[in-house]
């Protein structure tokens, strides 16, 4: 079964597309994809802004920026002939959170919150907060309306699903029953009091045992400070959700042709569907293709064996690649014009590439047979890393025009 082709240029050129979210498991090329799409959109006339959340500052490298400081900076070197522009920013999670606190509390209260050990842990940890702050920042950028297209690179979560879950989890948590207990029984609803009467002392004693009395007190102080300040974190989380469900948003699920990455992609597609989030398609990065696909792996391998058998036994042994272990050993330094030895090596290399490509194709077909309606765009594996605008331009072209 072959998948429908994902027409990315149409999405980039459609002025109604205001937000593109790139998501997927770690190590599949999300940041590069987001940067490449932002650059291409800018060069096709959009006022594009790329928001990255990656602590490795990879986008900074690939966009030639030395520092990204929580405000979008213009990227030099993008072709603006079509009237577009490119900005990029790197999320400073702690600063974003600090700004929310400072904007919503009076200075004394703000200082008190900023100094609380729980606040410091929460605002600088990687779990949950990063996802929430990315959404907060996205909301701010969208609201500022200075860009007509925002491309978001999602945080490097352990799983692609964290991105969808974390904002709600934080919202639910800050609005949750535990918080009611921590901020004092006065806030607990009557129905819950019944449960509490039975287990309250057991529970507080357990909490004290696990955390210690001081920790519990710090947590209580922090939570009540937040509680009075926000008066409903859940509402914020829900408005973030609505922003993502809006028709101007396009979700792109990024994967590499590996079982784990595609499994995550599958879950994500199902989840987006369940949440009624607008999925545009799947981007399959680092696909192995061959300019000589007409020569199959089996024929190629057989031909290389034919050549091996024509050579001296000792030469055959040394020409064979050492299996496993340290590479580069066991390869004889064949002369640059030793046609047979080079041909044997080229045929083995080709057989391996075809084999890899075949396996990847099978994995991609599994995905497509499970999700036949999801359009797919593929990008071939690049022999070298991408770390400048011209590299990003090449990726953007491959993504949008095929190869």
């Amino acid at each position, binding site marked *: 079964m072959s998948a429908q082709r994902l027409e990315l240029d149409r999405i980039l050129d459609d002025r109604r597309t205001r937000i593109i979210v790139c998501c997927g498991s770690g190590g599949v090329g999300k940041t590069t994809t987001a940067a490449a799409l932002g650059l291409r959109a800018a060069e096709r006339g959009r006022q594009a802004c790329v928001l990255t959340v990656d602590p490795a500052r990879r986008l900074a490298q690939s966009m030639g920026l030395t520092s990204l400081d929580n405000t979008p900076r213009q990227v030099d070197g993008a072709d603006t002939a079509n009237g577009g522009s490119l900005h990029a920013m790197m999320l400073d999670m702690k600063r974003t959170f600090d700004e929310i606190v400072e904007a919503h509390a009076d200075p004394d209260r703000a200082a008190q919150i900023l100094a609380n050990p729980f606040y410091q842990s929460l605002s600088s940890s990687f779990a949950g907060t990063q996802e929430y702050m990315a959404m907060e920042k996205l909301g701010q950028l969208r609201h500022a309306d200075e860009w007509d297209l925002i491309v978001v690179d999602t945080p490097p979560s352990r*799983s692609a699903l964290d991105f969808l879950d974390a904002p709600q989890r934080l919202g639910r948590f800050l609005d949750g029953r535990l918080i009611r207990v921590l901020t004092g029984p006065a806030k607990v609803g009557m129905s819950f009091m019944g449960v509490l009467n039975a287990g309250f002392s057991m529970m507080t004693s357990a909490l004290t045992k696990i955390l*210690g009395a001081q920790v519990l007190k710090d947590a209580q102080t922090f939570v009540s400070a937040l509680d009075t300040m926000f008066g409903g974190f859940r509402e914020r989380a829900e408005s973030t959700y609505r922003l993502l469900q809006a028709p101007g948003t396009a979700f792109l699920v990024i994967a590499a042709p590996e079982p784990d990455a595609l499994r995550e992609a599958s879950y994500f597609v199902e989840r987006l569907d369940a949440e009624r989030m607008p999925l545009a398609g799947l981007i399959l990065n680092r696909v192995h293709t061959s300019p000589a696909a007409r020569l199959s792996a089996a024929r190629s391998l057989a031909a290389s064996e034919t050549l091996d058998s*024509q050579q001296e036994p000792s030469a055959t042994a040394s020409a064979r690649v050492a299996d496993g272990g340290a590479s580069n050993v066991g390869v004889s330094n064949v002369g640059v014009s030793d046609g047979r030895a080079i041909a044997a090596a080229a045929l083995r290399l080709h057989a391996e590439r075809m084999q890899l490509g075949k396996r990847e194709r099978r994995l991609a077909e599994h995905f497509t047979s499970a999700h036949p309606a999801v359009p797919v765009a593929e990008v071939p594996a690049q022999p070298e890393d991408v770390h400048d605008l011209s590299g990003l331009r090449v990726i953007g072209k491959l993504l949008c025009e095929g190869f």
Partner: protein
Amino acid sequence: MSTADTDWDGVRLHVVTGKGGTGKTTTAAALALALATAGRKVLLIEVEGRQGIARLFDCPPLPYAERKVAIGLGENNRAGQGGDVYALAVDPEGALLDYLAMFYNMRRAGNALTKLGVVDFATTIAPGLSDVLVTGKATEATRRRIGGKESPHVYHAVVMDAPPTGRIGRFLNVSTEVSDLARVGPIRTHADTVAKVIRSPQTAVHFVTTLEEMPVQETLDGLTELRELTGGAIAPGGIVVNMARPAVLGPDALAAAASGSLDVGALAAGLKASGVGDDDHLAADLAIELKEHALQVALQDRARTELLKAGRPMYELPMLTDGIDLAALYELAATLRKQGAA
């Protein structure tokens, strides 16, 4: 092969980290198989709830319980003749219940706390707290003995498939992370016990990477972060280079291929001799593949040079084009053992 004289004799808790997509779980599993020589028990721990170990070993999803999943690599690298490999999936919720039951005999209270969202609380507001519960389980298994104080350990070694490189420093730096929140109290005491094991010579942190620029950079950054966060108290282990593509030609021919000066005529003649011929300019197309291969080999060599700067022992696992199954895991385990990693 003798069971002594590996690079990590004396290490009993192997923490395996790496950037996403580099094969961290696969490497951890291969290391566990390699460590499990005849008569030895090795525990493989998963901490991120992905059930990656169950998929690798082709068994049902792992519960919060130690289950035997495979037989280790025997002497002379014979699959299935070694000791037992157990696996355990630790989640913060299970670890919390375990902690309460083990130290306070309070499992019932634990269940009530779970219902109230205390685990959500821990993972949301203070990941340090859930990390200490998870690492606490791993260190408990590492210290566990068959009987009394002087009796042998239950597990010869524990291998942890840890969080990715970007998070590993904070994940392992439990006592500091927790002490910011709790200066005194039981969780602090627990964190200190955990930290003592993690900061002892019994523990080593191995980094898995591929020979690509960004994973290599993250590995070097991760090593630096680990050293700076803990003042060198947590011992770095080895660097496992995964999915390396061996060069198919020697340096001269590779250089020619990379610069595009490869003798395509000679290649065409070679192809003719092989029987496939040179229809449709096959030689020219294969020369393109050789060129890309040569560029990749050069990139790999640069990456290796970068990694060597870290001054850590290095191991190399090949790319397996057919994917990873149990047989492939044994193959990788044998490769690790051959290179002295286990």
